[in-house]
Structure formats: C-alpha cells, structure tokens
C-alpha cells in the first residue's frame, strides 16, 4: 500500500492504494466518484477521461500512485456551460460516454487556447473539422457525434474563440 494525496474536485483526499490500482479505479471504487466511466480499460475509448492538473488524460491507463500530489477534476467537479449545451444539442443518448466527452472537451478547449496544433491543422480557428479530430479520442457508440460537435461549437463560439 502506498499513501497518496490528491486534490480531487477541490478537496484534498488522502488514500492508501496498491500501486496497481488505476487512477480510474481509485476514483470510482475508493472515492466513490462514479462519474468517470470504464468503457474499455485499454485506453481505447476515452470514457474515463478526467483532467489531471488541467490536462485531459485517460485515467484507466494511469496508476493512481503516479498522480500523488496532482489536482484531479472529474465530471462531478465540473460546472461548465458545456453541460447545458450537451443537453440542448443532444450530445448524448445513453450518457455513458458523456462524462468523458465533457471533461475531454474542456481539456480540448484549453489546449486549443494554448495553441496546441492538431492533425487537421496548425492554424487557429476552431473549425468543426478541428473539433472532430481533437475529440476523436472519445468514442460514442450511440453516435451522438453531431450533437457533441454542436455543443462544443456553441460554447466555443460564445467564448469568442
């Protein structure tokens, strides 16, 4: 067992975990934060996306011990216009990928703001094609992809990007 401390959604949490426990399982099983979802446990779907020190990561391939001292934000700690926009634009159906989509979108907007390029373009306007590429790490089997893009474009537009 290793003792770690993380600031999770604003609260400092100390917990004893085995090194093999993933950040995702630490959040879900130890801290009871069921917002981040487990879709594959293989890094291949993005349902487990959380923000670690502001960066979006797949928490299923992260060992909790590696994030000792980090600040973690899960969907439970999010209050963001994207949430309402997802409802308005029907950016989900079953809702299972949604926590990951929203956390990912928040991280994505920050990355874009910071000048991070994408495989689509080096340039800055956040086009729909850009959003699609940048959000491709989040699968949605219900196929709510159009609504997700609309929700993001809506919010990004309001921010004057």
């Amino acid at each position, binding site marked *: 067992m290793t003792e770690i401390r993380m600031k999770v959604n604003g609260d400092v949490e100390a917990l004893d975990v*085995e090194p*093999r426990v993933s950040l995702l399982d630490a959040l879900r099983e130890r801290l009871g934060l069921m917002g981040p979802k487990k879709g594959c446990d293989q890094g291949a779907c993005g349902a487990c996306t959380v923000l670690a020190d502001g960066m979006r990561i797949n928490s299923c*391939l992260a060992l909790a011990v590696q994030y*000792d001292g980090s600040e973690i934000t899960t969907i439970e700690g999010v209050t963001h216009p994207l949430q309402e926009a997802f409802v308005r634009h029907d950016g989900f159906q079953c809702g299972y990928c949604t926590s990951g989509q929203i956390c990912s979108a928040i991280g994505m907007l920050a990355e874009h703001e*910071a000048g991070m390029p994408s495989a689509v373009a080096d340039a800055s306007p956040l086009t729909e094609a850009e959003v699609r590429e940048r959000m491709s790490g989040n699968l949605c089997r219900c196929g709510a992809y159009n609504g997700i893009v609309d929700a993001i474009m809506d919010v990004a537009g309001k921010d004057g990007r």
Partner: protein
Amino acid sequence: MRSFAYVKAADVEEAVRAVAADPGAKFLGGGTNLVDLMREGIERPDTVVDVTGLPFDTVDELPDGGLRIGALVRNSALAADRRVRTRYPMLSQALLSGASAQLRNMATVGGNLLQRTRCPYFYDAASACNKREPGSGCDALDGFNRSCAILGVSESCIATHPSDMCVALAALDAVVEVRGVDGVRRVPLTDFHRLPGDTPEIETTLAAGELVTAVELPPLPVAANSRYRKVRDRASYAFALVSVAAALEVRDGMVTQARLALGGVAPKPWRAREAERVLQGGPADEAAFRRAAEAELAGATGRQGNAFKAGLARATIVATLRELSTGEAR
C-alpha cells in the same frame, strides 16, 4: 495485474541502478503501454520505477542548430513545440497522428520509443507468439496478419513496430541518448530497434537497466519541407497500416536531398535508404518517385492478409513525395 513495488525515481543514477540490478524491474513513463500490457498479463514486472519525476522534460537547442528532446517530454508537448513545427514538421505531424489527445498528454518520448507491437496474437495470452513467449510459435503467420509487417520480417515474427513518432525520427537521423550503469551511450535511432531474426523477444539494442534520457535531432534544413502521411482504417485514433515520413529538397526539377522512412510495414521504424538512393540527384517526378518506392519494396514479403501493404506503401510514398515536390496538399 499482479502486485508490484512502485518506486518514484528521484535521480537518474538511482533509477538506472535499480532497474539494472533487478531483472524483474521496469521503467515507467506515461504508462499508456506498460499499464495496458501489465493488465493483460503480458508484462509482469515486480518493480516499476517511475521515471517521470526525472528532469528530462525539456526541449533544448543544441549548439550545432539541432534539438535535444528530453525523454520525458510528453508527446503532446513535443508536437506543440514551435521549433519542431517549423524545423521538423513531419515529427509534429507524426506525433499528432498517433493515439488520441488524452494519450498524447500522458505518453513520453522514451515510452513511445519502447512501446511494443500491437499484433493481436501478441496481445492474446492464449495465442502462440514468439515475441511474448519465445519458442511458442507465431499464430500471425497463417492467421489475421493484415496489420503485420512485409519488410525485415523472419519466420519467427512478422509483428510491426507501431510507433508513428519513431518513423519521423528514423527519417531525421535522430540519435538516442541512453544512460546505463556504465555511463552514457549514443545510438542512432535506426540502430536502436532490432529486426526479429530468431529472437523477436529482443526488440532493441538497449542493455538491461539502460534508460533513455534524450533524443537528439541534428540540424537538417531539408526537414523544413517534410510531411508525415499516415494511412489507417479510420480517420483518427488507429494505428498505421502504412505511414510515410518524407523530407524533400528539389532544385530545378531535380531532387537534391531526400529523407524517407516507413511505418506500419516493418518490425522497426524503416528508414528507406534504397529509395533515398534512387531519388538522390534524379528528377522530381512521378515516375522517379515510383521507381524509388519500388526499389525500397523490392524485398517485401507479403502474406495473404497483408500483401496489399506493398502496393499501399508504394502509393503512399509516391503521393507524399508528390505533395512535397509540388507543395499541393491533397
């Protein structure tokens, strides 16, 4: 995943010593490959030495005009680096074409170099795989081998090296700096990975306990006109079927410099020297590009599922060179 001890390395010496002394120990970078394989029971270290706290997380100018990339620089940070984007655009493009944004935020340069194959039979502990379990055979030879290699393969293994980043590095004459108990070594990227031969389980020329500390890029003006082109089964978030990293300098219609490497077709990032030789000094036209591609792929040995890769690689090489020579995007 079995239990293991976790050590967060505070300094290089300690990290190298810890792993060199213990055959069951492994370095841990972003964890995006190692944790996955540990969960599948394919990697079974008893100690994991986390190196992400070591101070190799910057990209620095070299006196000769090259760049020194710390082994712990995250894939996303490297892709975003202005100098990389202007001086070696193919490297930034290669990184951005790999995995997903979340994974790129986690993955390190060192881990990317050492990521293991995605051959499905390697991933399935119930299948025969000489790489996973030497001597057990290779189920890919007559199985699903659509993703497998056509160059540099052996009868014991046809798995590919899956990295995109490494393909660009191979084309760029990158040099890997490694630190072992006996000190520092510098290995050209093209000598860093091994071909399978009879020992596909040995994938690199690293000795036990050697830590990758940096990758150095030489100054390479031709690389400013470079491109990474990745062909895969969906538009994003998939490994390459074939990829091409190319840099080209054309003067008066003639190729004065060319750098070319291939991904998805070989057990290691494949520097296409044969093609470069054919291109060098020749006309920058479609026919010459085709001759170069064909020269490189002359030795390709496809199987039922992956024979198409030779044609695809040829087409992708030609398309990428055409794009670089005309400056016209697709």
